[in-house]
């Protein structure tokens, strides 16, 4: 995945990787879909990753969590990411969010739609338990239809089993 190279070099990523100092899978949690557009190498406070900006949410907080095969149970890493997401979302209450649930390609189409929905629901329930109002949260499942990684091995499939918290246009 080309995007991974640029992110791995970014100061933001290094800071997070050191800060988390957890298992290798934590690295993959920091790979945003749209890293190229967000100018990840620009970590200035006034830039795309300014406090309260979508860039900050994506790169500093982490906009996605990952799941085991055929599971919608939140891992300890996922819960830690979602706790940070909830804190950020409570600090910046103007963003409605959409949680996108996804599955890897190693399942059948209909089941994966439901599995993605289950992952989105588990993510929403956790954010809600942390105080994010449910009426701020919309969920949608894409099943196996929108992979971010397209190689053919376990490392890619594990990146695709995800729930992404997408900020939508701020209100007010």
């Amino acid at each position, binding site marked *: 995945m080309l995007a991974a190279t640029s992110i791995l070099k970014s100061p933001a990523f290094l800071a997070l990787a050191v800060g988390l100092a957890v298992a290798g899978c934590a690295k993959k949690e920091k790979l945003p879909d749209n890293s190229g557009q967000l100018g990840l190498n620009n970590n200035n406070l006034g830039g795309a990753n300014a406090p309260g900006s979508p860039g900050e949410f994506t790169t500093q907080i982490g906009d996605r969590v990952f799941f085991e095969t*055929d599971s919608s149970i939140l891992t300890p890493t996922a819960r830690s990411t979602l706790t940070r997401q909830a804190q950020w979302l409570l600090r910046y209450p103007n963003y409605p969010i959409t949680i996108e649930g996804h599955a890897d390609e*190693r399942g*059948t189409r*209909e089941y994966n739609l*439901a599995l993605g929905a289950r992952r989105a629901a588990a993510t929403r329930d956790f954010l809600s338990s942390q105080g994010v109002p449910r009426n701020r949260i919309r969920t949608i*499942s*894409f099943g196996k239809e929108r992979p971010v990684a*397209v190689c053919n091995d376990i490392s890619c499939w594990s990146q695709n089993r995800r729930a992404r918290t997408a900020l939508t246009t701020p209100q007010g």
Partner: protein
Amino acid sequence: MGRDRTDFSSGKNVSVEYKIKGTLMFSLLQKIIISIISVIALTLSANAKIEFDITRGNVEPLPIAIMDFQGDKVAQDISAVIANNLRNSGLFKVTDKAAFIQKTLEVGGRPKFEDWRVLNVQALANGAVTSLGGGRLRVDFRLWDVFASNEVFPGERLEIEAKLWRRAAHIISDKIYEGLTGEKGYFDTRIVFVDESGPKNKRVKRLAIMDQDGANVRTLTRGSDLVLTPRFSPTRQEITYMSFEGGQPRVYLLQIETGQREVVGNFPGMTFSPRFSPNGQKIVMSLQQDGNANIYSMDLSSRNTTRLTSGAAIDTAPSYSPDGSRIVFESDRGGRQQLYVMNASGGQPNRISFGNGRYSTPVWSPRGDLIAFTKQTGGKFLIGVMKPDGSGERILAEGFHNEGPTWAPNGRVLMFFRETPGAQGGPRLYSIDLTGRNERRIKTPSFASDPAWSPLLD
């Protein structure tokens, strides 16, 4: 076969439970012997009919000759489409035209049977195409039993718009298939599927429709919205499918000819995995609420909805039995995907799949005797069939990723999609005989998935 649950991984040389009655051309010698043996056999041979099982292991395809129909170029084209259909069925060996001794035959004439017997051709078709003006064609055709020296059925005539000449060829192919096997054909049918283009992480998906043989492809949606799992109405030129239009994934109904669309029902969540009831009056589908998917049916005239399953599980991929009395579906209520059968009105389902692996996307055969499914085991995705009580499981196709079977209307042939791995990989359509033999790729303009076979056209 009993209640054997073993996987037959090859799918070959395995007997299928039911037999297909057919007409086989007797050889002259066979007829003489039989006529000596018994009066009953004599009666049979007078009709030139015997029972022969074309589903057993190594069936020799029946040698057939398709003479070029008389007329201008479209007559040859019709003959070529007929020959292609019969060849692709795997049940016929179409004799090379270059070997023909008798080169022409008037549609009103009789073949020189001895010229065909020396080629060991058992069935012979000929015909003629006449332009009627006003953009219409008349097609006359005849089917001969070479060794019995008579017609399999009286010559037939059909009149059709000239631009529908391929349909004429498919209709005649079905007549020939039925005349020789005793089974309804499946050539005058269409396939609705999802046309896929663009890179794997940004796939554009469009509904598309084509003839059963891959001809006449046209797209039905523009590609701006993700669309999945189209299914044919058994009674009308309608498709039900799932679309992400407006960011709200829901089940839709589409009129094929007019392009008119509507949302099916007003459900408080994602609806998906739709399929028609056998009489076309209902759509059965899954409704997602929180982490659970349950199965609902909706009556298309009254718009009444009925909840058919409940509980904290993913219940999806419902498919009616052909008599409409039962529904097979997949559920992970037992921990992982397995197949269950329940009454069409709901109630306690019975689990029918017990093999090693995950079972999904069940589809009831139009004959009612089998259920086709996708099975995941050992890192592979297989296509198989089992009886509705779960016995007699057989695997027809296996590999990295095979998914989503659909039945030809005669319950004899299945189509499914096979996905190749990796960033450049994608799905393509394949058909396979119920015996697991005669696997063929259906050529499509680009990647293609989620095929659904239409009923025989009217």
